[in-house]
């Protein structure tokens, strides 16, 4: 129990950090926006001092609070989806049912953030763009420019939602290399601010066109609501196209909203993916401290918090490949007292159980794929050898002599017997019923596939489960490589030979996983010919096997008993396995 709490605490700390960065970002973005919109060529000093004084005024700090509130809500939901265990949805319908409420809520939050951003930012603009009411021809009219900017806020929020969150859930992507967090955040901010300006340009222009078409309806609606007049002249194409200032404001606003949401997303990714050096062994209870610390094995075991598990897998890889990592020594050390290879046993069994569980799941999912299923290269029926038959007879004789009865019923035989016992008439009826049943099943299946949309919504696409497993295989990839590297390091660093005992199991597990992956070589997964997750995992397992075989090439005969496995491993020793 405490382990879950510790893992969650670790994630929570990081989420809080991401949240505080997101809040700080609101001020930065606002400052950025103010610098943009208050630009004066002739009065640069006024421009800078004016912007800074606005940024640090009480009004600003007060009026930004609603936006910050919405950002907090947004990040809470974002954090929850980052930390959630990824579920498998066999059909699109299930996916829709399970994710729709969350997506709807998320969409609402997007709209809220979009609206509040637009509301806040417009209050710093020129007086023509600031209020919903404006003076026109002596009466009070609805301000279509203000409405335009508010709509841009909603539009940008929708744009971000459809681009990033509609089809996919927020997913944690680990960086290829771990740089300092400061450098990552710096380059992220530069990149985002620049890219969002480019990305929002065309959509803003499109939106302006759309506003010209349907803006009148919106204006009239709001005019009725607020009991105001409508300024028709402000809605003509020319007035929108020529008002460069409005378009510019709209563009910057859209860019700000897009970058804001992207940055929040990335802050979470950066903070959660920051590597941790887990401890190998807890300090004795007597020392007081360190009881709450998460060990590497705990981290690998925490399948309920996938982020921590992934961090653990990466840490295993790092500790195995870093030259001067003292933790490797701890792994190979014997416990005091007792002199048991406690650390290694725990670590290896945890890794192996994860790898084996994955292999089993993968194998089970592969059975559903018709391409793999229908292509058995070798027949699996084993002919009974004479020795085996003799042994069976001997066993039966022994049982009979000592009166040992067979307690287990042989199901298959009995079934055939019951069928045989049926009278001919019964059998005929039975056959008929069976036949009709089969026919109905077939027609239903055919109908299911032919009626458009039915299979799309309710059918499980072939290979979807495998693709899902592979898309979550990153943890396994790092564990496999890390475990293999620890094994190879053991040749020179493992003084007591603790790894040697488990090495055959490691090799066996990797070979089994490789065999299962090889079956997928020519299979289209979810319509994709080359699934990158699959390639990454296959190459990772292959490299790990090469690593082990290269280092232990001279001792393989002593390590592996199975001649079939040995033959496979020889391919790796001679570098011919592809």
């Amino acid at each position: 129990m405490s382990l879950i709490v510790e893992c969650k605490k670790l994630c929570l700390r990081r989420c809080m950090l991401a949240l505080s960065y997101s809040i700080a970002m609101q001020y930065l973005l606002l400052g950025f926006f103010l610098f943009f919109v208050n630009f004066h060529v002739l009065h640069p000093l006024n421009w800078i001092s004016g912007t800074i004084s606005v940024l640090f005024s009480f009004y600003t700090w007060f009026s930004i609070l609603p936006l910050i509130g919405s950002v907090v809500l947004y990040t809470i939901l974002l954090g929850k989806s980052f930390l959630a265990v990824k579920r498998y949805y066999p059909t699109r319908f299930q996916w829709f049912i399970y994710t729709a409420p969350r997506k709807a809520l998320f969409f609402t939050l997007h709209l809220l953030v979009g609206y509040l951003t637009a509301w806040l930012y417009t209050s710093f603009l020129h007086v023509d763009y600031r209020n919903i009411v404006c003076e026109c021809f002596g009466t009070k009219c609805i301000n279509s420019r203000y409405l335009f900017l508010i709509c841009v806020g909603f539009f940008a929020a929708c744009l971000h939602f459809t681009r990033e969150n509609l089809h996919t859930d927020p997913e944690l992507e680990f960086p290829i290399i771990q740089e300092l967090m400061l450098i990552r955040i710096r380059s992220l901010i530069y990149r985002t601010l620049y890219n969002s300006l480019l990305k929002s340009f065309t959509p803003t222009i499109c939106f302006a066109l759309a506003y010209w078409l349907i803006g009148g309806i919106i204006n009239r609606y709001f005019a009725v609501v607020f009991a105001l007049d409508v300024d028709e002249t402000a809605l003509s194409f020319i007035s929108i196209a020529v008002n460069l200032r409005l378009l510019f404001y709209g563009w910057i606003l859209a860019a700000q909203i897009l970058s804001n949401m992207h940055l929040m997303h990335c802050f979470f990714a950066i903070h959660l993916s920051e590597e941790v050096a887990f401890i190998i062994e807890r300090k004795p209870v007597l020392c007081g401290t360190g009881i709450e610390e998460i060990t590497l094995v705990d981290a690998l075991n925490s399948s309920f918090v996938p982020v921590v598990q992934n961090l653990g897998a990466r840490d295993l890889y790092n500790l195995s490949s870093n030259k001067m990592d003292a933790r490797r020594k701890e792994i190979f050390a014997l416990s005091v007292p007792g002199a048991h290879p406690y650390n290694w046993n725990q670590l290896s069994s945890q890794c192996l159980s994860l790898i084996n569980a994955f292999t089993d799941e993968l194998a089970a999912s592969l059975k559903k794929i018709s391409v793999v299923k229908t292509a058995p290269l070798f027949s699996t029926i084993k002919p009974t050898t004479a020795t085996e038959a003799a042994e069976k007879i001997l066993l039966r004789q022994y049982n009979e002599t000592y009166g040992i009865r067979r307690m287990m019923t042989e199901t298959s035989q009995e079934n055939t017997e019951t069928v045989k016992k049926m009278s001919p008439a019964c059998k005929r009826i039975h056959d008929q019923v069976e036949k009709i049943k089969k026919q109905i099943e077939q027609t239903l299946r055919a109908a299911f596939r032919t009626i458009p949309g039915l299979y799309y919504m309710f059918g499980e696409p072939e290979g979807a489960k495998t693709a899902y497993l592979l898309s979550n295989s990153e943890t396994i990839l790092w564990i496999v490589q890390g475990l293999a590297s620890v094994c190879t390091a053991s040749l020179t660093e493992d003084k007591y030979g603790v790894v040697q005992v488990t090495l055959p199991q490691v090799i066996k597990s990797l070979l089994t996983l490789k065999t299962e992956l090889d079956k997928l070589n020519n299979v289209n997964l979810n319509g994709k010919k080359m699934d990158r997750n699959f390639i990454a995992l296959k190459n990772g397992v292959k490299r790990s096997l090469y690593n082990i075989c290269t280092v232990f090439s001279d001792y393989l005969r002593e390590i592996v008993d199975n001649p079939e496995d040995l033959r496979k491993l020889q391919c790796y020793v001679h570098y011919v396995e592809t």
Partner: protein
Amino acid sequence: MVSLQDVSTFIVPGQLCALPQNEVDSCSVSEYYPEINLNCEMFSTSVSGHANDTYRNVMIPVNEGVIKRIVRTFFESGFMEALNEARDQETATVSPLICATAKYTCEMLEFVKRLKTKIFPHMREVSVNNVAEFSETRDWMRSYIRCIVWHPNCFKIAVAGSDDIVRIYTDEPAMVPVLKSGSQKWITSMAWRPLTAAELAVGCQKGVCLWTMDTNMHITRSATQAVFLKHPGHCPITSVQWSPSGTLLATASISDTDILIWDVDKLQNTPLRRVGSPCSLLKWSPDGAYLLSATVGSVFRVWSADKKWTPERWTIKCGVVQSACWSPCGNFLLFVTTGDSILYRLHFQDETVFTSGTSTKEALKIADLTKFNAGRREVGGKPQALAWDADGRYLAVIFKDTPCIALFNTCLKKFDMTISPLCFLTGLSTEYPSYICFQSKNRRNKETVLTIGWSSGRIEYFPFGNM
């Protein structure tokens, strides 16, 4: 500094190591080493980067109208070629108006290009000469052999020729798979992926060509097996290096200040970004802890992969880093610059006991490579490339303008290394070495063998077994 002529082969402490004085003849290696001579095998002798209008030499010219000719050229060779076609003498006589228009257009384009170069000096177009300048291969433009790489784990050599073809040699002389692709031009560097059977990254003009060979297939020519890694603004590639674990690929281009680190399996990359000159040379230390990146300016950096990729920034007084190599333990870095004829050494070790915060780290000069005459041979001069063997016992140096290979003995200790001159090697008649590298240690061969690509296209193996 002691002058070279009076330095004996024994090293006096505190003095620089001198060049070797005695020559050795080449020895023979085991018979399974493939005999390679690119001079005889070259498919086409036209050197890439030179005139590329070879198809015109074989086509019979036909009479066609000016407009038609220009349009055809546009579709065949692109806008610039069509413009050149419109400017030439033939067009001028037939249709002076077209010629004049084309001339003005061309001048305008030139002007815009010049202006752009002035405003954005870092976006200058890189020519084949720039690539040759920063290559570790001597006379890269004309050399038959552009790069030789040994597979780190097994008996396999990849040789890139000036015909833009990579040939793979193994201990079975009957099979020589060739890797050829239309977009594989200006090969500057290659690297075998460690811990794989046959995956080769080839750095070339337009990006990195990643070949995955089926070891059972004998001829690999189809481009379908090659994955092309491209990134906007990151070409031509001048250096490719795999991490020793084979997970990451680092690439550098002389037109890009970023170094790209690729997760090849997922086809994703991430830049290592610092302000400064573009990067030209990369060397990953054998233990994977450090990555050296030399720029085209006076700065080079050593990135610590273990320590969150923080770089150590070094500057050299004159020139740029020409070549560098890591010791097998990854603690020592040897490098040479284009500015002088000195071999430098850098030491990387977490010396927690001896370091004091104030002392600045400095590269140590360890050998003087100034040119001198040994009998009728000229040895030394400005260094071209370095190669260090997998045991850290021998170091080979080739030079920019002398035809000998200088060999040194090196001895590695935990906190120190020593170097002493051994001998020098020469080729046949006027040959000079274009490229050198040591054979990796593998099951087939545990001996130390220096592989030399001579300017004549011949590859020679020099075993150190009896030294």
